[in-house]
Each structure stands twice: as structure tokens, then as C-alpha cells.
């Protein structure tokens, strides 16, 4: 609720840039126990400056504002809106924000301000996008993850690839520069961006339908920018898998 209980009390809407602002106010008058509902559609505000949208109640009366709707009816012009309450001496800002074209803000009887977009959908409370440093620190709870920076989080894989064994054909990859077939059952992965050190986690796996000789995938000679994957074998040769897959987690240099 929003109460006006003095003869100088009133609610104002101040427009920053000339647009086409439509205001509706629903409130009740209390006159010594006699309740009178009032709804008021204010004439469109096309200029700038302060406009009274809920007038002062008369002497010994109170207004209780149940709903206040402010809609930017302009086709393109955004404008800053300031809603304030004054008692004739002091003025308090109740809400301030920019309304883009066809957006609105509504104050309800629970005292909640809600913004609606041009499609009439409620606008969410958006956190600002996290910076690379904030993603790497992974501690903030007041910024949001965006697709363009998600990969900087320490828990997110930094690189991966899937490639064939018989032709070194890279089927898919992220942050990988090259893959080298160095021996039967051995490939060397070169990462596009080095890790900060050699304390990064490498996970590798093999695709092998027959499972006759290839039994497992291991890695060795892990460096900041390269790693060697090995297929653990039963026989001395003939141990190439169908495909190799790998991914690395850690801190980029």
C-alpha cells in the first residue's frame, strides 16, 4: 500500500525525455470510515518534468493507493521515469527506471513494483554478465554466466577433441590446434591455448567396438600445451582404436 494522509501529500511521476506516458491510478479514500474507491486515468503525458498522478486527500481524509500503472505508449522513445511521494516538504523517490517503448511498470497493492516488456511479459531481474576474471574466480553470486564466458570457469573443460586413429581426422574439437599420430596406439594432442602449468586434469577414452586388443586409454608426458594419449594394449601392435576422445580441465595460462 501507499498512503497519502496529509493535505500536502501527493504522488508524482517525473518524465525525463518527452515520450507518451499513460498513467492509471486506483486508490480508495477513507473519510472517517467511509470508503470511496477512485480510479483515475491521467491524461497522456507527452512533455517532460513532474506530473501529479495521485492528488492530495482533503482534510481529515486518507488515500490508500492500490495500483499505479505507468506505460510508455511511444512507438520508439525510451524515457527515464521517477515516481515520488511528497508531503509538501520532503520528497521520497519510490521507483526510478527507464521505460523503453511499450514497456510499463506497475505498483500493486502489496507494494511491489513490476516491470513488463513490450510483449507484456514480466521483465526478470538480470544480473550483469560476469567478466573473465569473475568467471575464473568462481566466487561471485551477484553476476551471471553468459555463453561467451562460460568456459573460463575452473570447473568447465578447457579443451577437447575427438579424432580417428587411422587418418588423424579431427571430428570435433575445442581449443585444440593439432593432433599427431605418432605411433600405433599413440597420439599427441597440441592445445591451442596452454594451461598455466602441468597440473591440469586430462581425461581420455577410446571408441572400440570389438574390444579384442584395446583395453584402456592412458595419458603420459603431460605438458602445459601438449599431452600424449596411449591405448593400453594386449598385443605388441594393431592396437589403434576407432576413435580417440580427450578433454582437459584446469587453469588457462
Amino acid at each position, binding site marked *: 500500500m501507499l498512503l497519502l494522509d496529509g493535505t500536502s501529500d501527493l504522488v508524482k511521476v517525473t518524465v525525463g525525455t518527452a515520450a507518451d506516458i499513460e498513467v492509471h491510478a486506483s486508490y480508495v479514500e477513507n473519510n472517517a470510515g467511509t470508503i470511496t474507491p477512485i480510479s483515475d486515468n491521467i491524461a497522456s503525458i507527452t512533455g517532460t518534468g513532474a506530473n501529479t498522478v495521485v492528488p492530495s486527500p482533503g482534510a481529515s481524509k486518507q488515500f490508500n493507493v492500490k495500483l499505479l500503472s505507468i506505460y510508455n505508449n511511444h512507438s520508439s522513445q525510451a524515457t527515464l521515469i521517477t515516481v515520488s511521494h511528497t508531503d509538501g516538504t520532503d520528497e521520497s523517490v519510490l521507483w526510478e527506471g527507464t521505460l523503453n517503448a511499450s514497456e510499463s511498470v506497475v505498483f500493486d497493492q502489496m507494494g511491489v513494483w513490476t516491470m513488463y516488456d513490450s510483449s507484456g511479459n514480466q521483465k526478470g531481474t538480470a544480473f550483469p554478465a560476469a567478466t573473465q576474471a569473475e568467471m575464473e574466480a568462481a566466487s561471485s553470486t551477484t553476476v551471471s554466466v553468459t555463453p*561467451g564466458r562460460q*568456459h*573460463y570457469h575452473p570447473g568447465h573443460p*578447457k*579443451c577437447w577433441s575427438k*579424432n580417428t586413429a*587411422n*587418418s*588423424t*581426422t*579431427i*571430428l*570435433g*574439437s*575445442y*581449443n*585444440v*590446434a*593439432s*593432433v*599427431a*599420430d*605418432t*605411433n*600405433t596406439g599413440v597420439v*599427441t594432442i*597440441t592445445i*591451442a*591455448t596452454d594451461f598455466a602449468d602441468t597440473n591440469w586434469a586430462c581425461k581420455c577414452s577410446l571408441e572400440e567396438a570389438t574390444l579384442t586388443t584395446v583395453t584402456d586409454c592412458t595419458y*603420459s*608426458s603431460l*605438458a602445459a*600445451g*601438449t*599431452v*600424449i594419449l596411449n591405448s593400453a594394449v*594386449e*598385443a*605388441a*601392435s*594393431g592396437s*589403434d582404436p576407432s576413435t580417440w576422445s580427450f578433454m582437459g580441465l584446469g587453469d*588457462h595460462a
Partner: protein
Amino acid sequence: MKIAQKHIAVTLSDGHLVIVGLLTTARGSALPYGARWLDQASGWWTRPASNEVIFAELQRTFSNPHFTSQGLTVLSYQVVTEAEVLAADRTFRNAWKLEANGKIGHDLAKAKVLAVDYLWAKRQKLMEKLDKELMHAEIRGTAQQVNALKQRKTDLANRPNQIKQAIADATTITELKAITLED
């Protein structure tokens, strides 16, 4: 956008042939050497397979401790097609070498060493299998079965001398591949 790559046949200082799949169009959060963004927002980049890029990439790949600890360095490199790589017989892949015509071929002497290793490992497994079968036959089988298994073991034990000669006499990879433990 799709991944693109070039295949580089690299001969190391010990004569070993490595095939490098060099990405020329791919995706990532940072640019590799010699690359520029195609679409930075989605992370797609591209780079030419120039000598400068290839050289830089090989330097990075072969700076891995696995190679440096053995003193292995790049002797030469050549761009090959994927079809050439696919056409290469991988039976004795570790004996690959780049032929004068730019095709992937084999170092026959190295292939013969690999053939011996492979057949000996296979013979060892077969011998272990026969030992188990013989043990079971001696407990539950007939004398005929026992004698047959003993004969197979004897044949297998005598086979290395024959195989050694066949491997030594082989003049092509095809002949080498045809040599088996069986007569």
C-alpha cells in the same frame, strides 16, 4: 561452419614418420598461432597451412618431454592428403616412412623387427592357451587329446626358426604380412 585441417607427414630425426592433423578452421576461446577470428562470438577461427604456421605447430608438438627426452627433432615435413594417409597400410605403422614420390611407405627392416615382436607376442599367448588346454586334457581328456596338444606345442616351439627365415627372406610388406604362426 565446419572443422578443416591439413595432414602433415613429419619425419623425425630417428627416421620415424608422424602424421599431424593440423587444424586450419576450428573453434576455441583463444586463437592458436597464425589464426584470425571468423566469428569471435561463437569462437570460430581460421589460419592458413603456411610453412610459418606448420613450423610453429610442429615446434609446439615436438617440445613435449616425450620427444625432447629422446632428443627427437623434426627432420622434414610435407603436406599430404587424407586419402594418402587412409590408403597407408597400418599393419606395420611404426615402420612408416615417406617415399621419394611423397607416398607413405614402409621401412622393410623396421617392419621385420615389428613382425618378429608381433608374432612372438602372439606365440606366447598361444603357448599359454595350449598349456591350459593340456592341463585340462591330462585331468579329464583322452591320451589322444593329450598327444595332439603336445604335438601342437612342439610345432609351435619349433616354429620360430621357420618364421625367422621367412621374415628374413621377405622382400615386400605383403610377403611379411602373409607370415603367420600356422604353416
